[in-house]
């Protein structure tokens, strides 16, 4: 499923061997949205050359591996802009890669 490659919900993040925020309501462009919106169904794509591991803020190389060229759709993912709830982080074992993240759907908070 394609992701919205334009707009505030699209993020391209350089990821190293330190856990890095790649998607969530607290990223700068989303945190600035007023009123808050619900962010649903996210796709992550590894466009770099090193495997990244996807998880929460304490993620390590034990988390979900995302190989170069691989993508994963998390359907049912939901968070609110301006919050850190359900923030997604990535890390590499060594080296640097790029994670592109974006919504597959978007809706206003009820």
């Amino acid at each position, binding site marked *: 499923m394609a992701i919205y490659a334009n707009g505030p919900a699209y993020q391209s993040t350089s990821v190293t061997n330190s856990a890095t925020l790649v998607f969530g309501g607290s990223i700068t462009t989303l945190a600035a949205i007023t009123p808050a919106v619900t962010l649903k169904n996210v796709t992550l794509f590894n466009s770099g050359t090193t495997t990244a591991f996807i998880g929460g803020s304490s*993620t390590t190389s*034990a988390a*979900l*591996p995302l*190989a170069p060229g691989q993508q994963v759709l998390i359907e049912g*993912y939901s968070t609110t802009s301006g919050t850190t709830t*359900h923030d997604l982080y990535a890390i590499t074992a060594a080296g640097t890669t790029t994670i592109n993240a974006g919504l597959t759907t978007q809706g206003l908070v009820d």
Partner: protein
Amino acid sequence: MANFAVGNVAVPVFVPNPSAHSPSVTIYNSGPSVIYLGGSDVTSATGLPLYVNAEVAFPNAPSTLYAIGAVSTTGTGTTLASNAAAGGTTVALTSSGNYSVGEVLVVGASGAAETVTVSTLTGGTGISITSPTRLDHVNGGTVALVLTSQSTNLSVTALSV
């Protein structure tokens, strides 16, 4: 489609077919609580959370995926009396902790923790565990009794092309 019960020990939920050109998988959390996805040493602290009624879809999943549920513990029950290398089946503690056979413990700090199950008590402060440890743990690391664990169900649909 396969269904898995997931508890406080990481279990493999998808093993790619080695002869498949492009194995894909969809994992749906059909149970009552969050689970965490990752590699063989995934923990609830490190894995990707998959919330109730959520699913992940991998168009190309080249590696084995594991899942584990969340646990709550007593906090720091005791600590390790010596290093515990990955692959070991005995653990030395600084105090007995009054653990019993069959109880589940969390060994190690958040981010490098794993659950183990007590198989035998080997003296006052030693325990044997049912399966070898997957991670290295250092002297002084925390050991805590699992008070409750969340178990859930996963539906896994794999497609090999």
